[in-house]
């Protein structure tokens, strides 16, 4: 990685080697996203791993947005159980 920035590299990269915070993968319908938990059932979107194209245009799914993934997980789990999949992201 080559950083091309006017910020001092030591400021940008400070804390780079500290262990990353735990992240979980949440599945809501056909949407898979990486979420950093901030409270039980609430998380901040880190990135969309796999999503329909139009999901990227939704501001509520932009990285940094807070989501209630436990509720979303239950919904996804209900939808998944009806379609035969066993994935339940709320328990991850």
């Amino acid at each position, binding site marked *: *990685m*080559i950083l091309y*920035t006017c910020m*001092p590299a030591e400021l*940008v990269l400070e804390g780079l080697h500290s262990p990353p915070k735990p992240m979980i993968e949440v599945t809501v319908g056909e949407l898979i996203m990486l979420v950093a938990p901030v409270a039980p059932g609430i998380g901040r979107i880190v990135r969309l791993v796999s999503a329909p*194209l*139009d999901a*990227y*245009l939704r501001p509520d799914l932009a990285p940094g947005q807070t989501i209630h993934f436990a509720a979303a997980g239950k919904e996804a789990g209900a939808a998944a159980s009806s379609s035969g999949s066993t994935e339940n992201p709320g328990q991850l």
Partner: protein
Amino acid sequence: MSDKGKPETAAEQPAQGQEERPPQPTDSLVQLGQTAVPAAESNVFCLTIIGQVEGHMMLPPQNKTTKYEHVIPQLVAAEQNPKIEGLLIVLNTVGGDVEAGLAIAEMIASLSKPKVAVVLGGGHSIGVPIAVSADYTFIAETATMTIHPIRLNGMIIGVPQTFEYLEKMQERVVRFVTKHSRIQEETFKELMFRTGELTRDIGTTVIGSEAVRNGLIDEVGGIGAALQELKRRIADRKAAASGGGANP
């Protein structure tokens, strides 16, 4: 049996009558208990490039970042979505990953829809190629753009090879900027290697009208001017498309 059926049909009758009534603006207030009325959809997609452009590595959390893995599909979605007719790119970035920044710049440049960029605050380092990638560019009067050489960070295996690699990376940036703006290669390199301007580095900070004078940016202006220009370009594109449709 038949008695049971009758009340149901009677109950359905008024419901059908209600459906015929055109939707009223107060419906959301009555049904949902909220005053927010559906807003008119915009035909312009606003893409903001802020903080550090994050590439292959996740930057530590003190950085505000623009993630390229989100921006790239966003640009694809904006290109294929028929409701979006133009893109407004707003920049306030301090630079970031070369590969990711150039990827975003190349993607913006290759979009077929009209796109206008505005540099507000700053469009530094890798923000320069992203800013010039739009069809028409604006810079706020007080906004700045820092042009400086690519600095080395990371491991050095062999000095000549590393130097050559850095030179190649820099050449990519110079080529992109000179191809997508009016600035001459000599002028851009002169700004990039000027000494005595920056305290921690060689290079130059160009402010507002200076960026326009050097040919890097097209005009000094803000959001209003940018949206006006974008609307004009959208109208031109529509007119060209309808004209082309009439005379194939």
